[in-house]
């Protein structure tokens, strides 16, 4: 290999390694514990009928929303269409399809999370059942809300995203237990 080719190779390697270093350095460390001094029992979580563990905060649905989501799908849809929804917890992971897939290489995230609680997520454009028929603690199939996202939600998703993965924020789904109405 002539010296020119070697130089290009090393140069390319150095740039690639620096990009990898960027991703590693900027990966956000999640807080190990919730510092808001919640008791252990409050943080222990609830196991759904399908074995999924969710936080207590997620399990408590506000009464108005609870009334709506326990209705049959068609009625819930009529009541929810056009409604503005807000994040109930930190670090919501919006999805491109109505189920959870956190695979390493293939997953259905949109490339970033809605980081802050009480963020205006957007307005509801559709309501569908969980694609894998996953059930909530009450035994009903989780409902997912398709959302036309707000500028603030898009901003937080982009802020949380990795430079190597493009974000998909035209529309997305959020699950009933991470949202609230105001």
């Amino acid at each position, binding site marked *: 290999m002539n010296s*020119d080719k070697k*130089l*290009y190779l*090393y*140069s390319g390697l*150095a*740039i690639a*390694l*620096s*990009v990898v*270093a*960027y991703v590693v*350095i*900027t990966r*956000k*460390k*999640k*807080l190990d*514990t*919730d*510092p*808001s*001094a919640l008791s252990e029992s409050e943080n222990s979580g609830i196991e759904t009928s399908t074995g999924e563990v969710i936080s207590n905060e997620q399990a408590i649905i506000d009464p108005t929303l609870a009334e709506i989501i326990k209705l049959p799908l068609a009625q819930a849809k009529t009541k929810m269409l056009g409604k503005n929804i807000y994040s109930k917890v*930190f*670090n919501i992971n919006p999805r491109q399809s109505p189920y959870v897939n956190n695979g390493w290489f293939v997953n259905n995230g949109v490339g970033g999370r809605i*980081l*802050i*609680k*009480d963020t205006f997520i957007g307005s509801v454009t559709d309501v569908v059942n969980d694609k894998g028929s996953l059930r909530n603690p009450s035994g009903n199939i989780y409902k997912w809300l398709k959302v036309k996202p707000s500028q603030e939600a898009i901003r937080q998703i982009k802020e949380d995203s990795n430079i190597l993965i493009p974000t998909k924020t035209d529309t997305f789904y959020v699950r009933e237990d991470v949202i609230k109405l105001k």
Partner: protein
Amino acid sequence: MKNKKTIIIATTSVIVLGVLYLAFKKASVKDITNDPQLRADYDDLIKKIDNAKK
């Protein structure tokens, strides 16, 4: 030839150092998702707002 080598090495160095600078700059920003104190302050504020609404 020597000039070309110098340009490539200089360009690579600038890119690498620039990327590392941006990485450390971004990593040093504290927000409520990675700083316990900010998160606690934020939660307190939310509780106060919720209580004020009641």
